[in-house]
């Protein structure tokens, strides 16, 4: 009885949690939140799915090769964003000194490199939390 109620409820709520996590990551420079809190909210939806429906169904939806790919290239993305400043003659990880126009403050596409870096860090934190969950649940069996 408990499994039946949980499965029906989780199937409805998970999509809203996922979209809310992406909203918090993308609006990190307008409202409170930012990349770290948004990444953890996105990872919570997958962890709830894997807890209720079993680990095997969770691994079908997100195979481990995809998680390894996202995590490694997410760390490299941050370094590549910093090298944009060096290519234009400014210090490493420079935003305004490298000549990038900052846009209208208050809209979604403002801030130059801040939005891109925040998105990369957000999905990277989500994939780290899911990897830790898979490893700790599997090491017990």
């Amino acid at each position, binding site marked *: 009885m408990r499994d039946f109620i949980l499965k029906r409820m989780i199937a409805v709520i998970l999509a809203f949690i996922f979209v809310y996590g992406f909203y918090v990551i993308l609006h990190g420079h307008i*409202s*409170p939140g*930012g990349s*770290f809190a948004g990444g953890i909210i996105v990872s919570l939806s997958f962890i709830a799915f894997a807890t209720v429906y079993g680990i095997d169904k969770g691994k079908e939806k997100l195979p481990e090769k995809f998680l390894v790919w996202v995590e490694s290239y997410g760390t490299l993305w941050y370094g590549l964003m910093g090298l944009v400043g060096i290519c234009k003659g400014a210090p490493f990880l420079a935003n305004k000194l490298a000549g990038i126009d900052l846009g209208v403050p208050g809209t979604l596409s403002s801030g130059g490199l801040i939005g891109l870096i925040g998105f990369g860090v957000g999905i990277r934190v989500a994939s780290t939390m899911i990897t*830790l969950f898979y*490893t*700790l649940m599997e*090491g*017990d069996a």
Partner: protein
Amino acid sequence: MTTFLEKLLINYPYVISVILFFIGTLIILTQSNLFKKLLGINVMETATFLMFIAAGNIRGGAVPILSDTNAPYINPLPSALMLTGIVVSISVTAFALALILRLYREYGTVDANEIARLRNGGMEK
């Protein structure tokens, strides 16, 4: 001339943070289960973050996001620096849990006194 108790009552977040820190210390020193010691470390870290973030507050101030208010903005620096500390706390907790799983596989128990006795007993033979 304010008394000692009135001075303590004005700084109530610092008092709560200090009491939480020593509760965490008591948990580490008296419990013998390894999972409970890990929870004590987490409580001590939470008390430290509370003390730093409460030190940058102004009564009646505004949230540090630019909008049209007349109140002074609070200090954004302690909140921004404690983000790094929270991530370090997560990493230490995850690695300690993995090590406790390895200990359970080797010795079959999660009691700190039992593990010490098993390791010393095996060494004297």
